[in-house]
Structures are given as C-alpha cells and as structure tokens.
C-alpha cells in the first residue's frame, strides 16, 4: 500500500470484494451434465442438478484441480482437510432449496495477489476462495419485464451446477481504480492457468462492499491499516450485479461519490444492498426486507471431506503473468510497458516468444505489442480472432526483418489489409506492388529528381539543407513510396557531392 498523507476531514474509501469466477470444466461440479452453452433451456439437466429426490452429488475432480491451481497461483494455503456445506435459501434458481458450497473449511485460505496501480506495486490479501455450484437462471416475464412487475418466472437449470470459485478479498482497496487493476490481474492469472474463459458470458460476477471512513480513524500515515472498529462503525453498501472490471470501476466510482455526498451533507449512509444498473450507470437500492440473513449452514453429508493439500505439490501451473513480465524485461530487454502489453494474455505472450525466437526481440516487440495489438484493438478484436493466421503475421515480420518491404508499408498497408480483407502478406505485397524498389530504379529516380529540379539543387548547394527534403519527396513519389527515405537521402547527398 502506498503511504498517503491524510488530513483531518479527509474521507477514505474502503472496498472489499467477493468475486465469482466460473471454472472451465467440461461437466458440472456434481454431475456429468455438460457445461456447454446452449440456447435451448433445460437441455443439460439431470436428477442431480434438478435436485430430484434421492439423487447423489459426486464431485468433479477437474473442478478441484482448478481450485488447487488457483490456490497455488495466489500462494494460498490448501488445508489438510476441506469439506462442503449446504447453504439454505428458497429461490426458484435453486432447485434443491439449498446451494452446495463451502463454509468454515474452504479449499483455499490466506492467499494474495500482487497488482500494479499507476506504476505502484501492491499486494491484495485474498482471505479465502471456495468451491460452489452456480444456481440456474431466471427470466422475469410480462408486466414490462422488471423483476417486481413481472407476471411470472421462467426457469432454466442449464447453468445450475456449473462450478464456481468464490474469491473473497480483505477490505484492502482504497479506490475503484485499484479494484479494476485487481480484477484485470485476476482474470489474467486465471486465463494463464487455463481454468477460466473471460469471453464467456457471466463468467465473472462481482459483489463489492464499499464504505467511507474518516481519515483520522486510520493509524499513522499508512492507509493500509484500517481499525476494525472504524470499519464496523461505518455503514457499508454491498453492490451487486457487476460483471466486468470496467463495470466494477464505474459502479464503485458512482457508489463512492454517492456515499461521500451523503456524508458531506450530513446524511447517514444506509447499510443496504444495491444493484448496479449498467445501462443507466447508477446503483439502485434493492429495498430488500432487511431481515438478518439466515442460511442455516450445515454439513453436506452426501459429500465426504477432501484431503488434497498434497495436490499443491503435484499439480504444475504455468509461468504466471507477473513472473513472465519480469522475465521478458530481463531476457529481451523490454520496457515495463512493452512487457506488460506482451504478457496481457497467454496467447499474446506465447506468440511474442515465437517471433522473438526468430527475429530481433525489439522488432518483434514493436510488431506484436504496438502494430498487431494496436490494429486489433482498433477493430475491437482479440488475438484469439486470428489464432489460425499467426504464421502470416510472422511472415510479415520476416518481410520487414529481411528488408523486403518498408516498415511503413508493412504496417499501414499489409497488416491492415490482412485484417480487413483476409489477404496473406505475400498476396498484398504482390498485388499492391510493395516490394522494395530495386536499387537501380531508386538511383535512376535520384538522377531524374536532380535533373528536373535545378532550383532545389541550387538551394541545397547554397547551404539550404532543408531543400534535400523536397528532393527526397520527389524520389519517393517516383518510386511509389516503396523506397526507403533514409536510403534516398543518402543517395541524393552522394549524387549532389559529385
């Protein structure tokens, strides 16, 4: 945590998160139904995930492996023994009227994740992470579609039983920007581990607790240590329905301002649950009956306890983004910024290493981090969209590295045409005549330019060095832009020396 000087009357924002991530397994957590998305409701359901009487859950080994990988990645303890509980509540998205989850013995405890916020590195504590099943999905139909005015409810249990990991942080965040940085880093780590697909709808769901505390409640100058009493004394709101790291930053910035305004006007902040309305960009009170939550947790006797602490040693995980970023800086001599861009997803990092293995690492970095990602980003595309065409990008880098085309043409014409028209680099080069103009042709153009522009030559000879630029322009025009401007400059000067 960065030390910040705080003054009397200052307010400090305190945020903690509960992040639900959907684990990428082929089947559900307690039955063999597929987790594949389908538009047909109630297609991937069976007696277990429908909660039919007598059905017995059996734990999916892949979900446990994914949980252990996450634990390992965030340096959490995997306790000797961990078990499941039933969390009881009645809502139609839960066919059994209870959710199988973990309570007092979660599979991961006391982990941490390092993040970078505006150049500062800091560590966020992950208090616990546990396995649970996803509920089904509801549609509120009729009466304008709102949840309160709906005429009836349609229920689809395809999603019920999808494995989730709930990751709970300490109240370590002091700004919405920090929350966003954490979620982006978490997504990156989970994708590296291969246990998560960010593109999948609903794969990330966030509940955030936010409270505002008077700065004088903080001991000393370090804002990291917030007294438990001060935290308990402040009313907090729980903001639900956040589904992306961008959304989290927006929702929490709104909520932060709302609470600060209330406090500055001398009004109390209600302790309540609020719903993030993404389309309107505001949080709305859920007006829930503020009845004390009573989930009557009890042990799930159908699932024997797990003893998997040894798996932490046995299961290998890949090099994680932070480690890879540091290695890229050391091994390839990249800047922090370039290394960060190049490790933003595993696919990008893997591709960079392929290219850097064959060509100059700096050239490879420019091509992957700036040109390729830049053009993809401009088109709202991810590298996964051109997964099958990465060899073509490598070929383009080769054309530049071997001086067959200019960097400018490669970037502005070939790469763009590859993405927009689906042509291969060699097709674009041939069809657009972009092959670097032969030396003879450039020399001829230089001689012509000198002959045709006696005024510019005279200016140059009388000491106006800027006149050379005009002549370079003439040569570039004659060669259709395919000559290298630096080479042309050299050739012109040599010609004029004679």
């Amino acid at each position, binding site marked *: 945590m960065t030390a910040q000087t705080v003054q009397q009357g200052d307010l400090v924002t305190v945020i903690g998160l509960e992040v639900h991530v959907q684990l990428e397994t*082929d*089947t559900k957590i307690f039955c*063999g139904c597929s987790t594949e998305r389908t538009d047909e409701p109630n297609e991937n*359901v069976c007696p277990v995930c429908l909660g039919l009487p007598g059905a017995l859950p059996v734990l999916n080994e892949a979900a*446990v492996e994914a949980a252990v990988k996450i634990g390992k990645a965030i340096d959490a303890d995997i306790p000797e023994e961990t078990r499941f509980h039933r969390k009881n509540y009645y809502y139609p998205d839960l066919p059994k009227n209870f959710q199988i989850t973990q309570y007092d013995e979660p599979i991961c405890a006391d982990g941490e994740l390092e993040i970078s916020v505006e150049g500062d590195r800091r560590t966020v504590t992950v208090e616990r992470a546990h396995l649970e099943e996803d509920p089904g999905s509801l549609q509120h139909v009729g009466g304008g579609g709102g949840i309160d005015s709906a005429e009836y*409810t*349609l229920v689809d249990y395809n999603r019920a039983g999808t494995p989730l990991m709930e990751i709970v942080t300490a109240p370590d965040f002091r700004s919405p920007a920090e929350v966003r940085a954490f979620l982006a880093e978490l997504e990156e780590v989970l994708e590296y581990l291969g246990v998560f697909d960010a593109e999948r709808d609903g794969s990330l769901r966030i509940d955030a607790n936010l409270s505002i505390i008077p700065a004088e409640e903080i001991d000393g100058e370090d804002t990291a240590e917030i007294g438990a009493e001060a935290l308990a004394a402040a009313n907090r709101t729980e903001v639900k329905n956040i589904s992306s790291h961008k959304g989290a930053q927006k929702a929490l910035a709104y909520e932060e301002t709302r609470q600060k305004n209330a406090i500055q006007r001398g009004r109390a902040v209600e302790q309540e649950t609020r719903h993030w309305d993404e389309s309107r960009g505001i949080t709305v009170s859920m007006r829930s009956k503020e009845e004390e939550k009573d989930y009557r947790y009890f042990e799930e006797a159908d699932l024997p306890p*797990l003893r998997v602490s040894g798996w932490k040693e046995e299961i290998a995980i890949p090099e994680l983004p932070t480690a890879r970023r540091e290695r890229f800086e050391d091994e390839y001599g990249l800047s922090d910024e370039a290394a960060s861009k190049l490790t933003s997803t595993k696919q990008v990092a893997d591709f960079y290493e392929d290219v850097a293995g064959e060509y100059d690492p700096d050239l490879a970095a420019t091509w992957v981090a700036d040109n390729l990602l830049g053009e993809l980003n401009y088109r709202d595309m991810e590298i996964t969209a051109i997964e099958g065409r990465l060899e073509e990008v490598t070929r383009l880098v080769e054309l530049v590295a071997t001086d067959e085309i200019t960097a400018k043409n490669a970037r502005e014409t070939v790469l763009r045409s590859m993405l927009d028209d689906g042509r291969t680099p060699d097709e674009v080069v041939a069809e657009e005549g972009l092959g670097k103009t032969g030396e003879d042709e450039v020399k001829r153009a230089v001689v012509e330019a000198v002959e045709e522009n006696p005024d510019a030559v005279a200016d140059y000879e009388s000491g106006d060095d800027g006149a050379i630029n005009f002549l370079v322009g003439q040569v570039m025009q004659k060669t259709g832009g395919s000559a290298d401007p630096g080479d042309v400059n050299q050739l012109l000067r040599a010609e004029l020396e004679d």
Partner: protein
Amino acid sequence: MSDDAVSAEEVRHVAELARVGLTDEEVDQFTRQFADVLEYFETLDEVPEVEREADLTNVMRPDEERDSLDREEALRNAPETEDGYFKGPNVS
C-alpha cells in the same frame, strides 16, 4: 420435552425463510408438531455407540460427460411449463 422447545416466533421465522404463509392456528399447530418431531430425534440419544464405518475421503469422478435427461422427462413433474422452461409465479 418441555413446551417451550420451539417458540411460535421460531416457527414464523422458519416459515418466512421457506416462503410459506401460515395462519395463527397453523403456527400453533406447527409449534406443537415441531416439538414432537424434535422429541423423536432425541430417541437417537438412546442408540448405543457402534463402530463407525471407515471415513471416506476424496470421492471424485473424472470430468466426463454423461447423458442428461430428455427435456420432456426433465419437465415432466413440473405443474407448469412454457417453451421448455419451468414456469412459476413472479418472485422478487
């Protein structure tokens, strides 16, 4: 078992959690019945100690797909359905 094993308040609370509406008469009735049920459970205290079965741990299955139910079958017990969905009253 004494009469105050379960209070009317507790019955109302449990009914609320289970989304069940009870009349005052039903609350009285369930208060008595809950107490009776709990009394039956106390009989278990009289069961003599027996050897426990060996503890099971790490019972898991491989991540392999198994056939789901036909949708028709899955929806068969539902009082109301619509377009392949279970249909129920408005909830909030």
